[in-house]
């Protein structure tokens, strides 16, 4: 029997925001965002297989400011998910659970994702890429 009046366990809105918690949510959000981003990758691959004019359409999209904005978001999501994923793999090995360590690796991972995104775009823009 289901009783709708029973109390629920506390959810997100009851907790004070913390750095580690925000990063944890961001890991899932970036994963979902990257899933959407695979559409661009598949579009790019199919257009390449289809021929020059289809490929030019993709290039037009990624050269447009909106396309660039999407790419920038996906670049950061990729590097964040990658760096924080490595942090997760460390936890799977039983490492880095101390509160200080968890907080500091969080700072490190976030900084690394921003720096790597900046580097990738700097290289891309100076080489005349999309």
């Amino acid at each position, binding site marked *: 029997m289901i009783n709708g009046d029973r109390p629920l366990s506390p959810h997100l809105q009851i907790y004070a925001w913390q750095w580690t918690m925000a990063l944890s949510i961001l890991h899932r959000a970036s994963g979902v965002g990257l*899933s959407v981003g695979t559409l661009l990758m598949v579009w790019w691959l199919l257009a390449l*297989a289809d021929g020059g004019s289809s490929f030019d359409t993709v*290039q037009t999209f990624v050269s447009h400011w909106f396309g660039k904005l999407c790419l920038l978001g996906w670049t950061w999501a990729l590097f964040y998910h990658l760096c924080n994923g490595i942090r997760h793999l460390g936890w799977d090995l039983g490492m880095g659970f101390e509160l200080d360590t968890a907080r500091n690796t969080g700072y490190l991972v976030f900084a690394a994702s921003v720096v790597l995104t900046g580097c990738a775009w700097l290289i891309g823009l100076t080489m005349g890429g999309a």
Partner: protein
Amino acid sequence: MSLRSPLGRVRGLGSAKSGTEHFWAQRVTAVALIPLTLWFVYSILSLGNGDHAVATAWMQSPLNAVLLLLLIFATFHHMQLGLQVVIEDYIHVEYMKIVMLVIVKGASLLLGVAAAFAVLKVSFGG
């Protein structure tokens, strides 16, 4: 005395009906994706400003084609494992959950096969 059948005891699975396959597959694909995505980002950057002939020549190199196929497999496998957990966490109406899982897994398979087909078509020069 245990009430579990010999087969159930051998399989070692409880009422969840599955073991650590999901967890393990997600970690293995995650580890594989570390070098593969870094290689992919580097490759995209080195392809420069989007010339069709340059990108085609790049994909026709056997090494690049094989690495791309591995990247595609690992990406879409990892993606559907991750999205499955998100759906299971947030959708509590059973039939909705099943419908969403079938859609997400089907779409992942479709995208993965389409991507792999494109790579093969280009690399075999079709």
